[in-house]
């Protein structure tokens, strides 16, 4: 009698997508812990006395000591860090020194304006940048390519502060084509505050949901300029990357095959080649989106845009470290998350990366 040996049971393995997501979540957690450590250290080494910043010039010594203890600053460093991490994980980023409000509450109120601006800016960057990059790649060395390159270079090299002010001066100050700084004109702004239910905090969405179309158009006229200024930089980046990916792709054999088989050129470029280019482009777009969420600080200041960037800038000028660091943590988390998401997407979409 032959004994069929037991085949060893295959080791238990989680399904692939779950493993992928689990691994990503772990590295996300480690990165965020590192981020918290950095912001914690910055908060402790800056030569700003948080106690003095809260109680102000007039306070007595007793008030000083009481506040110091209330802030937990008499505890050992490691314990302070443990408390900081514990609070941050629960969404408690501390209290703003300036306004005495919870930093997390402030951020929830400011973030939608930034999200709205960065989203429109990224749309602008993609809708203009990708076609411009494709165009340049299909006609390398021609005047079209040169123009795309020069416009792109300008986008890289011009300081956004200067570009924003110049754009405001020309399109708002002189020509009056667009709305000015702020998210709405004064009249509409008051109507929005008093009469429109603020469901998302994003004015374009809230006014559309309420059917306030005049207000919607006004909001659009206000967001056009800052999002174009903001989107210009990412447009420059996206168009350069698209061009180089596309050049690479157009040299592939399957493109030659398609052309030999008589496929129309627009189909070769816009369907076959672009589809493959889209894979690495996802990473580029996600990164520039994340960059806009954090890089809008100056644009928001100039355009009086009540977003996270303005919030961090105002806090910085007031030496309000909990607010600055809280904002930094949120931006950092968004950046890391978007980065990981694009990584995940990339691996799921592209079979070669599996």
């Amino acid at each position, binding site marked *: 009698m032959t004994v069929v040996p037991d085949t060893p049971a295959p080791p238990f393995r989680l399904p692939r997508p779950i493993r992928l997501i689990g691994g990503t979540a772990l590295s996300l957690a480690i990165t965020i812990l590192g981020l918290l450590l950095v912001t914690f250290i910055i908060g402790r080494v800056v*030569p*700003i*006395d948080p106690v*003095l*910043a809260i109680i102000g*010039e*007039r*306070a*007595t*010594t007793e008030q000083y000591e009481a506040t110091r203890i209330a802030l937990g600053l008499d505890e050992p460093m490691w314990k302070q860090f443990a408390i900081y991490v514990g609070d941050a994980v629960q969404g408690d980023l501390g209290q703003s020194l*300036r*306004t*005495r409000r919870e930093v997390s509450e*402030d951020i929830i*109120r400011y973030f939608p304006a930034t999200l709205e601006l960065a989203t429109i800016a990224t749309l*602008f960057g993609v*809708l*203009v940048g990708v*076609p411009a990059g*494709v165009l340049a790649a*299909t006609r390398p060395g021609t005047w079209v390519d040169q123009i795309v390159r020069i416009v792109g270079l300008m986008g890289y090299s011009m300081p956004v502060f200067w570009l924003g002010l110049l754009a*405001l*001066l020309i399109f*708002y*100050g002189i020509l*009056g*084509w*667009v*709305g*000015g*700084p*702020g998210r709405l*004109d*004064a*009249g*509409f*702004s*008051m109507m929005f*505050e*008093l009469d429109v239910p603020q469901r998302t905090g994003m004015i374009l969405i809230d006014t559309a949901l309420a059917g306030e179309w*005049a207000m919607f*158009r*006004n909001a*659009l*006229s206000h*967001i*056009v300029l800052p999002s174009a200024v903001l989107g210009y930089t990412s447009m420059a980046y996206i168009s350069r990357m698209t061009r180089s990916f596309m050049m690479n792709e157009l040299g592939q054999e399957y493109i030659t095959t398609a052309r030999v088989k008589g496929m*129309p*050129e*627009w189909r070769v*470029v*816009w369907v076959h080649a672009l589809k493959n280019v889209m894979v690495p482009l996802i990473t580029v777009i996600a990164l520039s989106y994340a960059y806009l969420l954090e890089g809008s600080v100056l644009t928001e200041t*100039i*355009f*009086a845009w*009540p977003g996270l960037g303005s*919030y961090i800038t*105002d806090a910085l000028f*007031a*030496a309000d470290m909990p607010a600055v660091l809280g904002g930094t943590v949120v931006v950092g988390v968004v950046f890391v998350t978007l980065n990981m998401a694009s990584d995940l997407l990339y691996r799921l979409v592209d079979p070669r990366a599996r």
Partner: protein
Amino acid sequence: MSFDLPFRRSTALVLASLLAGAAPAALMAQTPEDTLVIADAIDDIVSIDPHEAFEFSGTDLVNNTYDSLVELDPTRPGELVPGLAESWDVAEDGVTYTFKIRPDVSFASGNPLRAEDAAWSLQRVVKLNKAPAFILTQFGFTPENVEEMITFDGDTVTMKTDKPYAPTFVYNCLTAAVGAIVDKETVMANEVDGDMGNAWLKTNTAGTGAYVLRSYKPSDSYILEAREGHWRGDAKLRRVFMRHIPEGATNRLLLERGDIDISREVTSVDIEGMEGNADIRVETDLAGYIYYVSANQKNEALANPKVLEAMRWAIDYQGMTESFLKGEQTVHQAFLPRGYLGSIDETPYSLDIEKAKALLAESGVTLPLEIKMSVRNSQNRTDMAQSVQNTFAQAGINLTLSIGEGAEVLGEYRARQHDLTLQSWGPDYPDPHTNASTFALNADNSDEANLTGSLAWRNAYDPGELMALTEAAVIERDADKRRALYEEIQRKHRDTSPFIAMFQENNRTAMRSNVQNFYTGGTVDQATYWLVEK
């Protein structure tokens, strides 16, 4: 090639959508006729509860939504006028004040104003004990005794102080934002955990003021709406819309386009740029801030009176206000801001290098004198410090500038670790005692006393005879004698103390030329919206 087409189409689409959005902008360029639109930096607001608010923007809001028993006439600085009390009096004993409440006044809720509301509001200040509470508690009120010290009967509120004070001192303190009268019933209906409605009043108003708060978004905007039938007469404009816009260049663009009526955040550069624009007017009035240099008396050389006098003659006051401080600061050489009871306008000191050199030679210190000066890192302060450094060097004092972040410089100052420091000071309430008590009072000059709230202590300065004079001034019942006392104190302080007062700051407000009657409150910093017309 054929793929040109979709690209052109998408470009056209983007352009079209941009233009569609842009079109209505031109139509709404003016501010609404019945609304005053103001741009200011309002992110300093911690609370709009009048008994907690202690920042410029917060007290502006309080001034327009609440009233006090006694008020300052916004059109005539320093002049006391009846508010919610139609008359008031102080008894012969010098400690019993009575206020007769104005009849037929109502709160925004519709509740009638009663003497009970007034007494309760002042008690609430003491019981809450927030930042500005000391303005009232300095009269001897404590959470334990305040219910006996401040009482009401019929239409009269009675207030007893712990000892006799100058009546003008008491009245002036009641005009501060902390003296605002709140609607007891409404506030207590919103009490949470015994907070006397504090949490609710951080985002709501419950006063008798000319305006009612309709919407408040911290660090973003607030909207006020005028009340009908206000006892002072109705506000001229129905609404006030305050927008938080801190950037100077942005303020200027909005003002030039007519999208705001008033900007309180324009810089010198912007003001220069708007010169000759017939649509814009810039109004200047004096703010309460005094800029000064002070010398730590623990430093032997700096305690030498001849050295101090030499320094007074080695600063180019005039040169600075005529160049980089033009329009921003006015030369002022006394610790009380102009506009306060007892303030003096004299400016006896000016740049005289020879005199300074002679005084330094007489002083017996080793020359050149090497001294450090701590300065806060902001443009106008570092500019001032560099000018002082330059003229001091000509006289024989080598200044090293130590430039640091605000809280850092302040920390050093409070620990008495500076040599020289360039600082500013703003009054806490509209009475001369606010500055006199910090510049000229130092109850105990020892390090252990740690009287960090006193500027005299921070500089290890013993004011000597000025202490007695300051104590006398705060209880002097005759207003004229009181004024004379402050004048005397300031002159002596100016010539003998280690403080060198240099400038008083200006408020500069840029507005559309059709805007009339906007008062910033000047040195008191309580802006008045209800008189504005456009």
